[in-house]
């Protein structure tokens, strides 16, 4: 059966060039980078090269780039590390209600252990306004953490402006850029951030490797304790093949940035246009203008998202949904809820994300199947335009 992958925000396939770069580090250059004999040098050198490649993508000095096991680890490091290093100043952290669970649940945990965490509300397109942030700042605020690009609706925050506000108050600023990397400009100097979380598997690299940018001079304690790896800042034998893959993926993302964005956004716009005009009672959630180039978060009224997902899956099309019925917790998407969207509407939302391997034919096929599926599910549904909710 035809397989059409439209969930690039969940993960991406590893590009063949990336895999090729990784493979020798499993069987040939397997030396521990911390060892002293000659066999360890290729792995040590490969990590240095990868660090330069990822640093190049975000325009930082390689010494400010630390590899981790994933984006979630980077986020945890920031919350625990800043809270610890700056605890004399205070115990207040500001973040947002639309963060990834790696921030939200870490914040909830810290609350249980005596810290005060504020989750900022967002507007109907998912934006944190400067006024809302400004109003939440207190003398004991030690960290402001705002995700750059939202994983569900693709909203791109004005990180530069928010970081300026933080710095005007002398507060450390972090952004979770896991969805942003490779998709929007992640130049840390232009953004003015102190800390930035990243992950390899969202940019056609392997799973199990992430990174944290720490601007020189930022007050943050270590999180993973042990050996002297990562300039004594992050213990644990390095995931050498993974790091090599991250480096290669970052180099490719840097080299092909403009064409990636152009390819994704033009296909995404074509898809959204077709769905919204050809299927009634549908609309796009989030911002049109400041949006992840591949993201289309669409509500299909009067039907439920898991049903849509299952039927698309039946035709080999992979997507995700904000519906409660598809989540382990049976609660609807916290992001769409925070944007003020009613629960019955959230249940009918599907997130489509296009990427480098997506073609116009894939999207035409998807729209054609979607039209049939939506009509069929509306036929089955107990609610409709005529009957209302």
């Amino acid at each position, binding site marked *: 059966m035809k397989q059409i992958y439209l969930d690039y925000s969940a993960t991406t396939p590893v590009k063949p060039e990336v895999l090729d770069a990784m493979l020798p580090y499993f069987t040939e250059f397997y030396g521990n980078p911390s060892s002293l004999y000659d066999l360890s040098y290729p792995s040590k050198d490969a990590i240095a090269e990868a660090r330069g490649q990822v640093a190049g993508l975000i325009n930082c000095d390689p010494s400010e780039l630390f590899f981790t096991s994933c984006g979630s680890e980077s986020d945890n490091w920031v919350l625990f590390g800043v809270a610890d290093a700056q605890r004399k100043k205070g115990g207040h952290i500001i973040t947002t209600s639309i963060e990834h669970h790696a921030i939200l649940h870490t914040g909830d945990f810290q609350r249980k252990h005596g810290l005060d965490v504020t989750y900022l509300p967002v507007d109907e397109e998912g934006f944190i306004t400067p006024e809302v942030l400004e109003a939440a700042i207190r003398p004991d605020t030690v960290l402001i953490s705002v995700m750059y690009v939202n994983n569900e609706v693709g909203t791109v925050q004005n990180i530069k402006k928010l970081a300026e506000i933080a710095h005007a108050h002398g507060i450390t600023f972090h952004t979770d850029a896991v969805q942003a990397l490779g998709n929007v400009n992640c130049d840390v100097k232009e953004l003015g951030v102190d800390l930035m979380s990243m992950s390899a598997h969202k940019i056609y690299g392997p799973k199990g490797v992430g990174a944290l940018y720490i601007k020189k001079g930022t007050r943050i304690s270590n999180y993973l304790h042990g050996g002297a790896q990562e300039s004594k800042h992050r213990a644990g034998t390095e995931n050498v093949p993974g790091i090599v893959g991250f480096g290669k993926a970052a180099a490719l993302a840097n080299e092909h940035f403009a064409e990636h964005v152009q390819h994704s956004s033009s296909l995404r716009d074509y898809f959204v246009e077709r769905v919204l005009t050809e299927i009634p009672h549908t609309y796009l959630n989030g911002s049109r203008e400041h949006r992840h180039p591949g993201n289309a978060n669409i509500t299909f009224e*009067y*039907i*439920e998202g*898991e*049903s849509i997902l*299952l*039927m698309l899956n*039946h035709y080999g099309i992979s997507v995700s949904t904000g*519906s*409660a*019925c*598809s989540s*382990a917790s*049976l609660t*609807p998407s916290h992001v769409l809820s925070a944007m003020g969207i*009613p*629960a*019955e509407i959230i*249940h009918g939302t599907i997130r489509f994300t296009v990427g480098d391997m997506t073609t116009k034919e894939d999207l035409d096929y998807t729209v054609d199947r979607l039209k049939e599926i939506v009509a069929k599910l509306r*036929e*089955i*549904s*107990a*609610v409709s335009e005529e009957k209302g*909710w």
Partner: protein
Amino acid sequence: MKMYNDTVMEHFMNPHNVGEIENADGEGIYGSPVCGDMMKMTINVDENDVITDCKFKTFGCGSAIASSSIATDMIIGMTVEEALKLTNEEIIEQLGGLPAIKIHCSVLADTAIKMAIYDYAQKNGKTYKGLEGFDPNQTEDDHHA
């Protein structure tokens, strides 16, 4: 492992008895779109208290639609008292099982059936043993508890 087994997927992809019976003898609605699942069931009952037809409309996830479909199959031909005894456990068994997380939230059929029979009984001045103690206004609370 796939989320749903083949029986569930077959009932989901090709549900039986979809629709609404015109001028149905009984009608029941259970659940709410806010919770993510809502089912409407219509039934016809003959003079021998046998359910001769049953149709459903469901807003909901895969297991909500599949369980609605198989439940309508199961109760057509049953007497009203037999249908009142049908439990969600039996419906799930007939489907060959559902993921644990889906069991309590998405199977609306047993209550929807009771609602439809209650409506039929009210309209026709009938009483059934299986309806004793059933209060249609008290059912919303246990959904998505």
